[in-house]
């Protein structure tokens, strides 16, 4: 069957009334949570994971798709109206978007973000559908050592290639890897680092770690800043619709943003947020209104928002075809798959095509729902933004702990939540990135498995890792991704890299 037929089949599955309903709940919840200040897509997905516990695999993943896209969209609303981007991917949107909102053009800013996200999401999701089968075919020739090399590359790019310090990125990654070794070893059944505590035998839950580090760590960090005045929410004045000039100035940035964002997201190597910066730079150079940049240029919202959404769809390429999460959000989605015993990767396309294609089709549907839902409901989202901080964070902690208690109502699990929350707070204080810990925890066991399989085949000979051209090539790229930023920073050119931090929280 061709990709087109698979996609049609997926659309039939996704268009079943129950699945449409799940997608609708997903986008609504995703937007509502994503719009809250300080909550990015990673935390949105982690907080809402428990909602899907009682659904079947297909329904749950479809709702997930909606939550993911909804959370992305909600984040951009926050950064336009509040100027406190919850994630680095939205920083660029806030640059011009918030200026537009202050000038009374918040409506068109939100509209160009929404429609740009839709256009980019549509093209990128179709791109995902057409590229995925080729990568699956390529991935089928991958052996353990190629997979291991691929994961090393992902580790390096997630932890140290971007951000402001190689040392702190690598430290965060290895703390995550250390946590990933706790529990029963998958290959021999030996318990490791559990010290007789039965709760640790199953290892540390990715969702517990993610919720603790993102929700509790962030809450503690904000609380520790002391009492400040409320953030200023820009009211949406005037029409929410874009005029002819807005359309004329927006459509090219949407397409350019998509073209820039999708390949960057699709590469099996983190740092998906770079696309927004590149898109912003491109629009600034190509614009006919350079004087407006810095004062609310609509191109500066349209392009980066499109790039952001295109790379979000792009990250699903390595996630679905290789089982390789390259952002914290993708890592938590992988945990969502694993709770149903599904391991994304080339085999999933063969064993469970309805599920994969149903998911891809739901992304298209969720994308469309967001467009229809968001502009009319903008008043509601603005009201969510004005919740006073004490109630907002009290509510966030209520739902953060609800998820953990719902998954496992044990005092030990809550203790871990508290412990990792304090760890996440400490890491924020000292400037350590959070995403590498989460990616290390979920990818660590997979990387270890591949490494040990490769070494078992070679009977312990480590040189086998470098004798396959693909594996060797990937490891060389990983080494470059580690060394080049170190050299750049040593020469005092690190600002560019720290701006590109793939730090989503």
């Amino acid at each position: 069957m061709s990709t087109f037929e698979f996609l049609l089949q997926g659309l039939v599955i996704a268009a079943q009334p129950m699945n449409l309903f799940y997608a609708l709940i997903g986008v609504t919840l995703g937007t509502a949570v994503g719009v809250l200040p300080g909550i990015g897509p990673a935390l949105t997905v982690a907080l809402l994971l428990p909602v899907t516990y009682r659904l079947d695999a297909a329904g749950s993943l479809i709702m997930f798709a909606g939550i993911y896209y909804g959370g992305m969209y909600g984040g951009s609303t926050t950064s336009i109206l509040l100027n406190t981007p919850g994630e680095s991917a939205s920083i660029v949107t806030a640059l011009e978007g918030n200026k537009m909102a202050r000038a009374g053009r918040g409506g068109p800013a939100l509209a160009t973000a929404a429609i740009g996200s839709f256009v980019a999401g549509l093209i990128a999701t179709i791109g995902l559908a057409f590229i995925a089968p080729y990568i699956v075919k390529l991935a089928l020739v991958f052996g353990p050592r190629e997979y291991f090399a691929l994961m090393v590359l992902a580790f390096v790019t997630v932890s140290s290639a971007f951000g402001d310090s190689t040392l702190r990125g690598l430290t965060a990654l290895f703390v995550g890897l250390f946590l990933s070794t706790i529990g029963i070893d998958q290959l021999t059944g030996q318990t490791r680092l559990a010290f007789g505590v039965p709760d640790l035998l199953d290892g540390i839950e990715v969702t517990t770690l993610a919720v603790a580090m993102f929700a509790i760590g962030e809450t503690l960090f904000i609380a520790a800043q002391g009492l400040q005045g409320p953030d200023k929410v820009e009211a949406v004045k005037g029409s929410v619709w874009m005029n002819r000039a807005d359309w004329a100035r927006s459509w090219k940035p949407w397409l350019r943003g998509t073209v820039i964002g999708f390949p960057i997201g699709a590469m099996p190597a983190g740092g998906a947020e770079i696309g927004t910066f590149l898109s912003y730079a491109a629009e600034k150079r190509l614009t006919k209104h350079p004087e407006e940049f810095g004062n609310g240029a609509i191109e500066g919202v349209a392009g980066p928002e499109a790039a952001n959404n295109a790379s979000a769809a792009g990250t699903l390429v390595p996630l679905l075809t290789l089982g390789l999460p390259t952002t914290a959000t993708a890592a938590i989605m992988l945990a969502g798959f694993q709770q149903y015993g599904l391991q994304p990767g080339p085999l999933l396309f063969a064993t469970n095509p309805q599920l994969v294609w149903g998911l891809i089709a739901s992304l298209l549907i969720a994308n469309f729902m967001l467009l229809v839902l968001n502009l009319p409901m903008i008043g509601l989202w603005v009201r969510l933004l004005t919740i006073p901080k004490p109630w907002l964070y009290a509510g966030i902690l209520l739902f953060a702990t609800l998820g953990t208690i719902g998954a496992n109502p044990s005092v030990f699990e809550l203790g871990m939540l508290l412990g990792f929350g304090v760890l996440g707070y400490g890491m924020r204080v000292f400037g350590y990135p959070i995403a590498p810990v989460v990616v290390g925890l979920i990818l660590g066991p997979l990387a270890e498995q591949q490494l040990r399989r490769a070494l078992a085949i070679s009977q312990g000979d480590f040189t086998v890792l470098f004798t396959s051209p693909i594996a060797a090539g990937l490891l060389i790229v990983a080494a470059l991704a580690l060394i080049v930023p170190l050299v750049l920073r040593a020469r005092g050119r690190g600002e560019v890299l720290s701006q590109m931090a793939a730090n989503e929280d």
Partner: protein
Amino acid sequence: MNQGPLNKAGERRPDWAALAIAAVLVAISAVIFFDAARLREVSGYSPVGPSTVPMAIAVVLLLLAVWTVIAAFRGDFPAREKQEIQPVAWVVGGLAAQMLLLNTAGFSIATGVLFAATAAGFGKRKLWISLPVGIVLCLVVWLIFAGLLQLSLPAGPLERLFQ
């Protein structure tokens, strides 16, 4: 980088807090080495076993600890903002209280305490308002999630009234 007047770790080099981080990293790798040694005894000789990867992680953590010490002496850590301890204590206390109360007092009361403590950390100190509000809100959440979505949330005296 490290000369801000707000730096709680002291104005002078070395950066003691960063040295403490290095000490924690050393402690983690010591724990891994200890456990890996035990695993080796159990699993006997094999070139690649369950202890191989933890050992590698421990070695890298040791190297990172050395690097952290160097960074601490060179003042490479970014300046830290002043941290207010009291709000953090409220939130941590709320989480600890929830953890201890959960199985005896039930979800609503335990989480209501967390709710009120968090609000207090952010400046709403009127506990006689925020505590009842929190408990009622958590009860509503309990009814929705335990009732409709069938999550297993622990029940206490309040929840049993509705069962």
